[in-house]
């Protein structure tokens, strides 16, 4: 695990807070669904905390972010409150999408510079490229960051986006969350060369591989990429190696994943590992970390209560909002 000189102790505690908030939100959500209190289906992001949090933390609020279905941490960190996200999951009127879109889809909010996700993979990539192009157009020192999966990297848009991003020197960061599986399909049934960052070469752009379970490593890679992008040096492809720790979605038992693989990665759990690191390096003691955990538990419990108490949308509004300005 990297030891950062980029981050103050205060910042490192913040990283821990956001990872834990994400983890506890996720666990609460999974329980909710197991209890039959969910609506529709949803995705767990367990194991992905370091990527979404480390990456989002490395950006400024003016930067645009287009997360995917495992990036709960990024949504939260960028300003969507846990109550609004629970509200989205539960189809509430004050959920992020006002009951329009499901689970972590459609959680866009331009006040927070978040572009919402659609199911079709990997459609956020070129849209984020467009955001990045707007920064060149207006000569603004902003960057756009987006996430995609190993599975989605087989789709044509992956190629189209990287080619244009490099060609146009766009301030774009693409993070591939290589979590070994696309739904039930292991890497070796998706591609022959599983080192996705290597693809950057053929586009003439920067490519980096990081330990996706090391939040500071992710932070450092994104920080460096953002600095380069702001300096006019173009896009970066970052491959974060990690593991999807639960099923593809909550209904999926993931029997197809070998136990040993999960055990190996459980030993590298990004949240536990970072906790230990903070202790080891004397950034905080048990009491302080436990306090954070208690704060997080309360926050999440309150948020869920608030969301569950909030109203469903009025069916009379169903046709509203299809068009802007109307």
């Amino acid at each position, binding site marked *: 695990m990297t030891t950062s000189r980029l981050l103050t102790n205060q910042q490192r505690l913040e990283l821990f807070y956001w990872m834990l908030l994400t983890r506890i939100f996720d666990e609460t959500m999974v329980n909710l669904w197991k209890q039959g209190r969910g609506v529709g289906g949803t995705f767990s992001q367990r194991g992905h905390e370091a990527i979404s949090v480390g990456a989002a933390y490395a950006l400024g609020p003016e930067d645009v972010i287009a997360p995917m279905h495992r990036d709960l941490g990024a949504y939260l960190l960028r300003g969507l409150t846990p109550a609004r996200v629970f509200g989205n999951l539960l189809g509430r*009127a004050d959920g992020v999408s006002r009951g329009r879109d499901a689970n972590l889809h459609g959680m866009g909010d331009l006040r927070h510079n978040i572009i919402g996700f659609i199911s079709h993979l990997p459609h956020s990539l070129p849209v984020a490229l467009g955001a990045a192009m707007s920064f060149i157009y207006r000569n603004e020192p902003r960057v756009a960051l987006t996430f995609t999966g190993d599975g989605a990297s*087989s789709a044509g848009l992956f190629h189209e986006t990287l080619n244009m991003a490099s060609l146009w020197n766009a301030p774009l960061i693409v993070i591939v969350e290589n979590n070994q599986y696309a739904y039930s399909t292991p890497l070796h049934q998706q591609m022959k060369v599983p080192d996705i960052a290597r693809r950057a070469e053929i586009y003439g752009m920067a490519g980096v591989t990081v330990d996706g379970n090391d939040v500071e490593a992710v932070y450092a890679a994104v920080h460096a990429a953002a600095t380069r992008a702001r300096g006019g040096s173009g896009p970066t492809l970052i491959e974060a190696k990690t593991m999807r720790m639960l099923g593809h979605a909550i209904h999926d038992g993931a029997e197809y994943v070998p136990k040993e693989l999960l055990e190996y990665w459980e030993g590298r759990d990004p949240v536990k590992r970072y906790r230990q690191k903070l202790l080891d390096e004397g950034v905080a003691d048990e009491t302080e970390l436990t306090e954070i955990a208690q704060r997080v538990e309360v926050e999440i419990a309150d948020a869920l209560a608030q969301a569950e108490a909030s109203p469903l949308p009025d069916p009379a509004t169903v046709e509203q909002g299809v068009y802007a300005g109307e």
Partner: protein
Amino acid sequence: MKTAGALPFTDDPNMLQSPTDVARELTYIAAISEALREEMRRDPNVLLMGEDIAGEFGGAFKVTKGFEAEFGARRVINTPIAELGFVAAATGMALMGLRPVVEMQFADFISSAFDSIVQFAATTHYRWGGAVPWVIRAPADGGLRAGPFHSQNPEAWFVHTPGLKVVAPATPADAKGLLIAAIRDDNPVIYFESKPLYRSLKGHVPPGEYIVPLGKANLARVGADLSIITYGAMLHQALAAAERLAQEGVDAEVLDLRSLKPLDKEAILATARKTGKVLVVHAANKLAGVGAEVAALIAEEAFEWLDAPVQRMGGLDTPIPFSPPLEDAYRPNAEKIYAAARALAAY
């Protein structure tokens, strides 16, 4: 048939075999699996492609669970996430005489393969005579709180496209019979499955070879006062509405289109001319949907027989919303059909 008020869906002799056969009930989804399995056993040229369909996993809806074990990885191919590429590859296989059946994980993702379907597969026979005998299985339809990207009914795009065939079974028997017909057809066929029927609907399914010809509608309920023309999951909503109407003395005929391209023009015009009052219903959004073609056809060719304006009911012209009250407001159902049909009957 579990749906209230459903009359026998066909008088096809295939459906009336031995008493044990008649008793044999399958779910809609099991009927799909059975058709695939039987066709793969029969014809070594039939193979399956799609995301996550192989292994014990057997696809997002488990339609092909156990298939790899029986037929081998050669014939049950897990694909990367590249709908455009693998549908096009299926076109190449089909041109070489194979009969690929491609699973979309959800019908919503068929838009990712759209370009190759409408431009390559649909036009090839007309342009230079190459036959493209593939089937795309597309798990469609909503009502399941699955949001705008796991609930779509995109059939109208394909019905408008020359060179394709499009079917949408509403019953387990048709699910089997239309899939077998689609696999044996020498043209690209898009087969829309209705997810809400997968496990909720059981019905008699003839064992063995059972073919429902493409292009033939099914008169699901005989009636005299008005016609409800529909397909897919809405058939059952229409039948339920008809049952309620019957209690009030309104005798509704219900036509299940089954094939959307080619449409069974004859059956559509026959019911329209018979009752003089027509309500066309589908779950897809109404605007410029398949119902527009059906209504326009009737307005054009059954005008003299009409006693009331042809009515349409479909989804709203919005993306399909996720939240239950919104989705319920979006989507037609028995209640809404009942109300519209009642008004039509009173016209």
